[in-house]
């Protein structure tokens, strides 16, 4: 059957008692949700001294890696003079000589005493005591509210056609706008109640972000997607392993070849006025005449013939 393009007449009461109230309810619930999430998430306990020390050590290690990386990438491209770059390279990875000598020792990256982070002995304890649990608590408000709203709308407004988009849409938009409606012949421009909920929820995110700039913003931008992950231990992420990064950076330093840029700046500045080096002086190869550069027997170069003529005249 072909889709019908006849205009449906929607009861104005739908607009007054369904569309506008739903819009207000969804907007208000979106504004209240961050407060509820903050209450459920609770206040994080203050960090212990060992956690502070570990954090500082990690910050220092990250900075060392960042500086070494910058020196290798930017300095290696010739932003520094070669001897300045070599000096830094020696500081980071050593010069291969004996320790204590100039240019000797292992360098900062290879001699740093860094142990790999300890693996958690009890993964369950790590999950329960750490940020993962509080993150899941925070998402609980969003999940519960979502479920309640969706089930409520499906129960009270199932089969409702609420409004019509003022421009025609292709059939690809049917799943988006006809949720809860099993009418294949209905024009895509009509929006069902469940679809109206999703459109308004996602559409108001920008408004929430503006309204709650600063406080609650974290719940607005990531709340919906984090709840979909539902991963155990998602809050942890990969652990920072300073020793491994140091070793990797040191290996990269070894492989990086210095490319002169600043070293050749004078040539670029002066252009044609840059004084060229004097070409090879009188040949010193055995058996060659003065001025003859390459051994090609029987052939005389201009210079050698001139010099030969000069010698004859003398």
């Amino acid at each position, binding site marked *: 059957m072909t889709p019908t393009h006849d205009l449906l007449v929607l009861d104005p009461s739908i607009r007054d008692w369904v569309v506008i109230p739903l819009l207000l309810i969804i907007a208000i619930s979106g504004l209240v949700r961050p407060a509820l999430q903050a209450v459920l998430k609770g206040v994080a306990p203050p960090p212990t001294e060992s956690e502070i020390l570990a954090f500082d050590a990690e910050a220092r290690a990250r900075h060392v890696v960042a500086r070494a990386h910058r020196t290798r990438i930017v300095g290696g*491209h010739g932003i*520094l003079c070669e001897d300045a770059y070599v000096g830094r390279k020696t500081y980071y990875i050593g010069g291969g000589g004996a320790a204590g000598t100039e240019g000797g020792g292992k360098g900062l990256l290879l001699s740093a005493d860094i142990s790999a982070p300890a693996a958690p002995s009890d993964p369950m304890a790590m999950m329960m005591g750490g940020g993962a649990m509080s993150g899941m608590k925070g998402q609980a408000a969003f999940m519960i509210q979502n479920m309640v709203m969706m089930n409520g709308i499906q129960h009270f407004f199932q089969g409702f056609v609420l409004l019509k988009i003022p421009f025609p849409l292709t059939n690809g938009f049917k799943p988006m706008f006809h949720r809860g409606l099993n009418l294949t012949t209905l024009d895509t421009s009509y929006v069902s109640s469940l679809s109206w909920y999703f459109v308004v929820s996602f559409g108001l995110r920008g408004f929430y972000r503006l309204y709650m700039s600063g406080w609650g913003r974290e719940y607005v931008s990531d709340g919906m997607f984090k709840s979909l992950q539902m991963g155990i231990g998602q809050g942890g992420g990969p652990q920072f392993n300073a020793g491994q990064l140091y070793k990797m950076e040191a290996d990269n330093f070894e492989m990086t070849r210095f490319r002169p*840029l600043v070293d050749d700046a004078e040539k670029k*500045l002066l252009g044609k006025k840059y004084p060229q080096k004097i070409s090879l002086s009188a040949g010193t190869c055995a058996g060659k005449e003065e001025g003859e550069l390459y051994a090609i027997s029987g052939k005389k170069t201009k210079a050698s013939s001139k010099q030969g003529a000069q010698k004859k005249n003398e």
Partner: protein
Amino acid sequence: PAPAPSPAVGALGALVSAVRRGLGTEQSNGARLRAATLLVRESEADSAATRAEVDEEYGALLDANPGNAMAAKRLATLMRSAGDVKGALEVMERMVAGGRGANECGCWLEWGEMYAEVGEWGGAAFCLEEFVLLAPLDPDGHARLGECYATASASAGDGGQLALLRRARKHLSHALNLMGDAAGRAAPGATRRRIRRRTSRALLSMASVSSAFLDSETGGAEEQEAKICRALLEFACGELLEMCEGGEFSKTMGACIKDYVEDKMKVTDLL
């Protein structure tokens, strides 16, 4: 005497006081509120005693949290403005060693200027090299680094002097290349004139460095290096004369250049 605080600072002070009154004792001792209060007190500090108190409180913030970069930077700035540059250097060193500020251009630039103030040119050059690594396309960074190398060469031994002057030449050349590229991209008018004004300082430094290289005992003996220096000197002087051509200043500039380089190269054609 300290200048009168601006209206904005007065408003901030009133806000901080109101927030303190609204919060409990424990929360009003939080690091952020203390830092905001200290910012207000800094501008109101009208006596040495008050300034010393502010320094002490910033020090206390740092002792409580050595990673407090804001407190470290304010303390270093206050110490430097009070003349205690060595103390400011220690604060900066502690901050960077603690893993803060190492990725900020401003931090390295300030630190380099502090080293230059106390005459530690090696430290100043290191800090400016870090700045240049963070901002490789900034011509002013390369120009300052070149000037720093040139100044450091004055106190270096024979072997080190030439190496530092060579580095200075290269970085100044690179700065001039970058400035030339920027001037070429800029539309004619105020922007291009502004770029050319910055270029004049780099050109003067280039002339000075090239001349110093030629003046050194061994520098003049290296033929290729001496040729390069003469070419750079000619280039710098020519650009400077062209910049002030047609004005009254051009006569003065011409006379200075003539006196300066007369014995190093034939400048009659240039002038």
